[in-house]
């Protein structure tokens, strides 16, 4: 794009971010402060993820951008266009074809590979922020691995509700050392992070932090022996493709309580339907 460097950021800035990424990979789950730049998209809309993607993108990469699991939500469209315009890279909606996947709030259903990188947009990198608002304090707590506050919170949940009440952004321990926010993905996606073959990078632009999980790293969702971690999903198959193992969105279909449950991962659902799977509310795909 005329007047701008490849993928918008100047090379010095990309180098600075890559140095941060290397440190983040070397200390899995540790938040690395970085000189987050002002981007032409608003804070809270993926500026951290965009900066990470911009600094790792090469001319031959194939980029997929999803928001809520879908490629066609407006913000995903906007970010995909941003890179198509500023970097001229190829884009795709197919999870298997992408080399870099930027995501907000989901991990694709399809198992990621070693030659892929997933970049998460992170609104709040500090997993302890609801329990301790001062970053000076939380930094100390991470340094000492002092996570008692979070365990007490989970314990209080169990004593009040009989179960842990966190359903998304469910805290994880990375490599048995750092407590980490997995970003606001549903707890359903947490197990996918554990021993994932792909490199996982996290960017928080407004909060100016980067962190990472190298491939094949232990990621454990916090729990207790007598209250093991449980995922949450709607107890239905996908109405369109019949999948029973994918995370579902709930769609309100009428004013009389009508609901339709469909795959949140649009690529996963489309691929299944193309292969002939039909749900109870779906229709046979027309032959192309």
């Amino acid at each position: 794009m005329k007047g701008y460097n490849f993928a918008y950021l100047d090379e010095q800035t990309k180098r600075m971010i890559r140095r941060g990424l290397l440190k983040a990979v070397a200390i899995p789950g540790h938040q690395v402060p970085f000189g987050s730049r002002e981007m032409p998209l608003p804070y809270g809309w993926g500026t951290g993820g965009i900066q990470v993607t911009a600094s790792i993108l090469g001319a031959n990469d194939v980029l997929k951008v999803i928001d809520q699991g879908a490629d066609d939500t407006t913000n995903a469209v906007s970010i995909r266009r941003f890179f198509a315009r500023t970097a001229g890279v190829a884009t795709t909606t197919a999870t298997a074809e992408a080399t870099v996947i930027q995501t907000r709030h989901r991990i694709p259903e399809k198992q990621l590979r070693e030659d892929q990188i997933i970049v998460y947009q992170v609104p709040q990198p500090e997993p302890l922020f609801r329990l301790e608002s001062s970053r000076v304090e939380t930094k100390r707590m991470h340094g000492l691995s002092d996570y008692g506050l979070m365990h007490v919170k989970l314990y209080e949940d169990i004593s009040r509700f009989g179960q842990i009440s966190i359903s998304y952004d469910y805290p994880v321990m990375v490599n048995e050392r750092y407590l980490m926010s997995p970003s606001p993905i549903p707890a359903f996606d947490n197990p996918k992070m554990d021993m994932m073959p792909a490199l996982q990078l996290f960017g928080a632009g407004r909060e100016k932090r980067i962190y990472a999980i190298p491939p094949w790293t232990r990621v454990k969702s916090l729990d207790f022996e007598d209250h093991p971690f449980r995922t949450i999903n709607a107890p239905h198959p996908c109405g369109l493709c019949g999948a029973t193992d994918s995370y579902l969105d709930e769609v309100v279909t009428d004013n009389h309580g009508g609901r339709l449950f469909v795959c949140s991962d649009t690529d996963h659902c489309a691929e299944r339907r193309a292969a002939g799977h039909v749900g109870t509310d779906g229709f046979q795909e027309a032959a192309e």
Partner: protein
Amino acid sequence: MAYVAVKGGEKAIDNAHAWLARERRGDTVHPVLSVAQIEEQLGRSVDRVMAEGSLYDRELAALAIKQAQGDLIEAAFLIRAYRTTLPRFAHSRPVETAAMRIERRVSAVFKDLPGGQVLGPTYDYTHRLLDFSLLDDEAVAPATRSPHPLEPMPRVPDILGQEGLIEPDTSAEQEPGDLTREPLTFPADRDVRLQALARGDEGFILGLGYSTQRGYGGSHPFAGEIRMGEVSVEIEPAELGFSIDIGDLVLTECQMVNQFKGSKTVPPQFTRGYGLIFGFGERKAMSMALVDRAMRAGELGEDVTAPAQNIEFVLYHSDNIEATGFVEHLKLPHYVDFQSELQNVRRMRESAA
């Protein structure tokens, strides 16, 4: 209702942008607003966008205001996103506000002082009555200026400093920090705090400054001096070895003089709160000086109890580009998280039943 997976985000975005452009232009029976008109006639808006956008360029600020339909935070956002792409050629030397070419200078602590009081182009003593003559093109009477050149105007804290009644201004030992390059870390030194305040949202800083006057971290301030005018910007290229003047900036500076009863190590003396911003922005400069002083509570051995004294609280929430982005991101889809909350509530209700 037959459900079809929602498609068409791309087309919707294009259509929304086209509608926005149409909306911005307004009714074409009226002539289009020129950037020069904004620059000349909406000067205080331009000043605010330059201050919060952290870029001194009147024309670009005016362009941003036009593009943002007068939404000043949106305009500051446009300026910030442009500013971040600009290369850095040099750092200027500290600007010398004592040598400011004064357009306004008032002191609330001395009735008269060397250089005198200069009101300048202020709204202070206007009666806030709508001037209906502005509905039509109005003729403007010529403004008269004193034919005498202004005398040198020493800064009020410097006058107090001669008697040792105000804390000395310590010179920085290291290069000042830069929030636009390095992330905010704590403890945050005063240079970085002042930068954050100068870029911060006028309304937020005003509210915090006001809160210190109402008992939330009071510091007994006096407006020692407020001055506004042009200063020269000089750079000193390493290969030259002397400084060269590269242009002028209009700045507003506020020096608050605050009571201080002394501590175990420091005798009773006045302390400083400092405000300095691009353009003519007196409200912001004064508020900034109040909040700067409030944030020095810990350093001066005062109790830290009020929001304005809490450095982390102030610095993490003063930037309106960060704030508006994150508040407004709530309108982005959150249906994945909401769905997991729905299932969670359903499950909890089942187990409670």
